[in-house]
C-alpha cells in the first residue's frame, strides 16, 4: 500500500500541477495589486504564498497514499470534521457575528472548508458501496441525506449560508451523477422548493434575507448591502476590453471595492486585465475543471471516479457562484473563488482536493493491491 511504484512517478500529473501553479501565480499577482501592503504584519500575497507552499506539501502527502484507503477511513474523517464544526460553533471567537473560525495560532481554521471535502469523500464512499446501478430510491437516499444534513445544519447555524449551500450543491451533483429514479428526483425537487420557502421564512437571518433582496434591487440601498454588488460591477465593467493595466485599477486601490482580496478578488483581475485577460483566466481555470473530469473518466474504479466528480463539482460550483456573484448575477454570499481568493482554509482544502485528483490520476494503471 505504501510502496512507491516507479510508474507512479511516470504517471505524475504535470498538467494539473502546471495549471494549479499558473492559477496560483495569477492569484499572487492579483493579491499584490489588491493589497500591496498591510498595516498589520505580513502582506496578504506573502501569506497566500505560504499557504500555497503548504498546499503543495499537502498534495505531496496525499499523492503518496493510495486514495482508495479513504473508503476505509471516511467515517473517521467524517466524525473528526463534525467535531471541529461543533467546536467552532461552541467556542470560537465571533467575527462579525459569526462563529466560523478556530484560532490555531498561526492561522484561523475555518472547519466548514474541510467539511466540503469531507462530504465529497463520505458520499463517494457511500455511493461506491451502495450503488445498485438501477438508481436510488427515496428510501435509499435517506442515509446520504442525513450524512449531508448534519454538517449542513451545523454550518447554517454558524451562520455561513454560502458554505452550507455548497454542501447542498455537492450532495445534489454527486447524487445526480450516481443516478436517481425519476420518482425520487421529482420528490426531491418538490421538497427542495418547499424547504427553500420555509428556510426563507424561518431559517435565514435578517441580513441574509436582506442580501438576497438587495441583490434583486441593488439600487434601493446603494450605500448599504447593494454597495458590494454595484462597486463590483463597476470594477468589472470599467475594465472594458483590455483593462486598466496591472496595478492601475482604481476601484480596488481607493477602497471602493470591499473584500477585494477574498470573495471579490476576481473583480480586481477583471478591472486590471479587461475582457481578454478575464477570458484567459476563464480558459485556464475551466481547463483545470475539465481536466478534473478527464481524470474522473480515466479512473479504473468507481470510487476514484466518484471522488473526482465530487472534487470537480466542489471547485466548479464555488467558482461559478463566486464569479456570478462578482458579476452581479447572484446575491452576495460568502463564497471564495478556489485557488484565487485569499484564505488558508479554502486554499488548503482545494489543494487537498487537487491532491486527490492527482492521486487518482497517478494510479489509473495500478490495480488495487
Amino acid at each position: 500500500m505504501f510502496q512507491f511504484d516507479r510508474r507512479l512517478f511516470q504517471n505524475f500529473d504535470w498538467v494539473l500541477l502546471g495549471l494549479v501553479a499558473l492559477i496560483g501565480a495569477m492569484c499572487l499577482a492579483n493579491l499584490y495589486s489588491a493589497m500591496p501592503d498591510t498595516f498589520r504584519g505580513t502582506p496578504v500575497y506573502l501569506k497566500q504564498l505560504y499557504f500555497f507552499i503548504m498546499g503543495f506539501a499537502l498534495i505531496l502527502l496525499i499523492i503518496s497514499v493510495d486514495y482508495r484507503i479513504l473508503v476505509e477511513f471516511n467515517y473517521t474523517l467524517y466524525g473528526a470534521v463534525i467535531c471541529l464544526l461543533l467546536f467552532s460553533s461552541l467556542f470560537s471567537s465571533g467575527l462579525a457575528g459569526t462563529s466560523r473560525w478556530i484560532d490555531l495560532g498561526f492561522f484561523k481554521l475555518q472547519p466548514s472548508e474541510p467539511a466540503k471535502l469531507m462530504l465529497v469523500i463520505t458520499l463517494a464512499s457511500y455511493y461506491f458501496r451502495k450503488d445498485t446501478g438501477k438508481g436510488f430510491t427515496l428510501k435509499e437516499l435517506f442515509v446520504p441525506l442525513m450524512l449531508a444534513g448534519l454538517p449542513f445544519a451545523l454550518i447554517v447555524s454558524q451562520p455561513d449560508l454560502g458554505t452550507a449551500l455548497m454542501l447542498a450543491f455537492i450532495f445534489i451533483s454527486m447524487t445526480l451523477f450516481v443516478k436517481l429514479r425519476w420518482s425520487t428526483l421529482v420528490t426531491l425537487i418538490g421538497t427542495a422548493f418547499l424547504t427553500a420557502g420555509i428556510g426563507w421564512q424561518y431559517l435565514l437571518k435578517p441580513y441574509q434575507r436582506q442580501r438576497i433582496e438587495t441583490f434583486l434591487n441593488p439600487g434601493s440601498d446603494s450605500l448599504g448591502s447593494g454597495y458590494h454588488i454595484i462597486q463590483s460591477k463597476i470594477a468589472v465593467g470599467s475594465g472594458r476590453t483590455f483593462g486598466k493595466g496591472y496595478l492601475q485599477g482604481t476601484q480596488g486601490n481607493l477602497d471602493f471595492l470591499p473584500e477585494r482580496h477574498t470573495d471579490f478578488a476576481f473583480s480586481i483581475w477583471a478591472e486590471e486585465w479587461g475582457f481578454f485577460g478575464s477570458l484567459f483566466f476563464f480558459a485556464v481555470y475551466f481547463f483545470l475543471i475539465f481536466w478534473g473530469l478527464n481524470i474522473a473518466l480515466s479512473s479504473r474504479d468507481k470510487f476514484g471516479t466518484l471522488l473526482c466528480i465530487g472534487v470537480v463539482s466542489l471547485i466548479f460550483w464555488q467558482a461559478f457562484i463566486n464569479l456570478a456573484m462578482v458579476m452581479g448575477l447572484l446575491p452576495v454570499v460568502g463564497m471564495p473563488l478556489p485557488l484565487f481568493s485569499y484564505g488558508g482554509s479554502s486554499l488548503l482544502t482545494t489543494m487537498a482536493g487537487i491532491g486527490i485528483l492527482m492521486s487518482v490520476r497517478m494510479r489509473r494503471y495500478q490495480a488495487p493491491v
Partner: protein
Amino acid sequence: MRRLFDQIHNLDEEELLILKKRVEITIIVMVTFIAILVVRLWYLQIHEGEKYADMALNNRVRQLQIVAPRGNILDRHNRIIISNRPLFNILWTRDDAKDPDLVLKKMAEILQEDISDVLARIRMVGNHPKFVPIRLKEDVAWETVAFVENHRLELPGIRIEAVPSRKYNYNNLASHLLGYLAEINIRELKNKSSTLYMGGDQIGKMGLEKIFDAQLRGEKGQRLFEVDVHGLEQQQLKLTEPLPGHDLQLTIDLDLQQVAEKEMAGKAGAVIAMDVKTGGLLVLASAPSLNLEEFIGGISQQSWDKMVHDPLKPLLDKTIQGQYPPGSTYKIVTALAGLMEGVITPETTYDCPGYFTLHGHRYGCWKRWGHGKDINLEKALAESCDVFFYHIGQEVGVDKLAIYAKSLGLGEKSGIILENEKAGLVPTKEWKKRKKNESWQQGETVSVSIGQGFNLTTPLQITRMTAAIANGGTLYTPQIVLAIKDQDGATLQEFPPQESGQAFTTARALKLINKGLVAAVNGEHPTGGSAKMETIMVAGKTGTAQVVRLEHYSETEVEDVPNRFRDHAWFTCYAPAENPEIAVTVLNEHGGHGGSAAAPIAKAVLEAYFNKKNAEPSSAQ
C-alpha cells in the same frame, strides 16, 4: 469480513461506457454555466463598459468649485465702497468623527447653542453620504474661527470653510443703487448660462450688483481631485484658478453721497447731484436706506415685512421710482415755454393780487395777499409767483407746455442703466382723452402750469432738466458707471458721456431763466434763500408739491399737519450760476416747503462739493 478496500475493483467496459455518458452530460451542464459567465462578462465589460468606466470615474473623482472673488465697487476716485470679506462657515463631516455625539456637544458649546438645535440642523440636511460635509453654522465670528482652529485635535471632523462674501465699507451707503446679493433662485437659474451660474451661487438681486453681475462675478475655478472610499483626498488631478471679477468705478463721489445721506437721515426722499457737463451722477441717494447686511445669507421674512409696511417705503428707490408732482420747479418749464413761444418778454409784467380768475373761478397764489403789481419773470421765478405762471399757462396752452416739458426730459425715462425707472407724466389734451375719455378743462392748465394737477416727475428727471438748463440745453443720459476695471486697476471699458437730446431753448431764454433762478436764491425775497452760499453763486428753484388739497390744513403750521398730508418739499439748483458744473435736486417727502425743507440739504451737498474742489483742485472735476 472483507475489508472495504478490497472490494474496489477495476471497472468493466459496460460500466465505463455508462460513466462516460454521465461525464458527457456533466460537461454539457458545465459548458452551459460557463457560457452564462462569459456572456455576462462580455455584457459588463464590452457592452456596458463605457457606462461602468464613467461610474468608476465618478466614484473616485471629486469636483470642487472655487468661488471667484467678486469685483469691488469703487467711487469716482477709486475708493472702495463694496469689497469682499471671507465668510466663515463651520463644516462637520460625520465620517471623520469617532465619537460624533461628543464632538457635536463640544461644538454646540462653542457656538453657544443648544445641542438640539444643532442636531435639528443636521437632520434637516437629511439622507446623504457620510463623507459629505454638513454646514453646522454659517458666518461665525472671527473669535470662534480662531478657537476652533486652536482646538482642532479635540474636534475631529470639524472644519472651517471660508467663502467670499460682500463687505460694505460704508454700511448702507447708496444701498438702492448698489443693491445686494442672495442665493440664485430657480427662475434665474433657468434664464442664465449654465456654464457660469450654478445652484447655490450668490447673484446680484438688485441695483448695480444685479445689472453688472456678469462683470462683477468673475469665473469660478475648479479643482479636480481623487478621493478614496472615505472621501479623503488622495491626489490633486487638476486645478483651474478662479478669474476674479472686474471692478466697477462709479461716477458717485463718496463724500458727497455721505453728506447727502446724512442730511436725509430719518427722512424719506431723494438727493441727486449731477455733473451738468457729462450727466455723471455724483450723488444718487434714496432715503431711508436699506440695511444691506440684513440681506447677506437671505433676509428674514420678519425684516422684509417690516420694510414692506414701513410708511417711509424704504424698498422704493425714490430717485427713479418715486413719482411726485414737480410743484413750482415746473415753473422753469412754463417760463421757457412762455419765452420761446413769445408769450412773455423780460419786460412782460402781470399783477398778482393773490389770485387768478378764470371763468369766474379764482385760483389762488401761494402768497394769499399777493406779490403786488408789475411782477416780471425774474421776480416771478425768485418769489415763485403762481399768478404770473397761470397767465403764461393760459396763453401757451397745455399741449405747448407739454412739448417744452418733454424737450427737457420730463414724462419719459431718462435712460439710466438702473432697473424699474418710472417715466412720470406730462399731460396733454390727447392724453386725457385717451386715458380718461374726457376733454381737457382750461382750469387744469392753470394747475399744470405751476406743476400741480396731473404732472408727475421723478427726482432724476428734475435733476436732468436742471442740468440741461445749466449747460445750455443739452440732455444727457444720466451716467452711474464710469468704467469697468480689472483687479489691477487697468481700465477695460469706459463709459463716455451720452447726449440724448436737446431742449427747445435759445441762449437768450436760458439767460433770462438763469437770472430768475439766481434771484430765487440770492434775491431780495428769495424762496430758496437757504441755499445761498458765500462765495459761489447758486441758481435754484424751490417747489412745494401738494399731496392733497385740504382747506382744513390751510391755516395750520407745517409741523402740525399729519405727516402723510404734508406737502413734498422740492429744491433743484445748479452752481456756479455763471459757469455751472453741478446740478443738485432734493426731494423731501412730506417735508413741507421746498425753501425750508429741501434747499438746506442741497446747500450742504454744494458746500461739500465746492469745499472739496477748493481743497484738492486736481482730484475733483
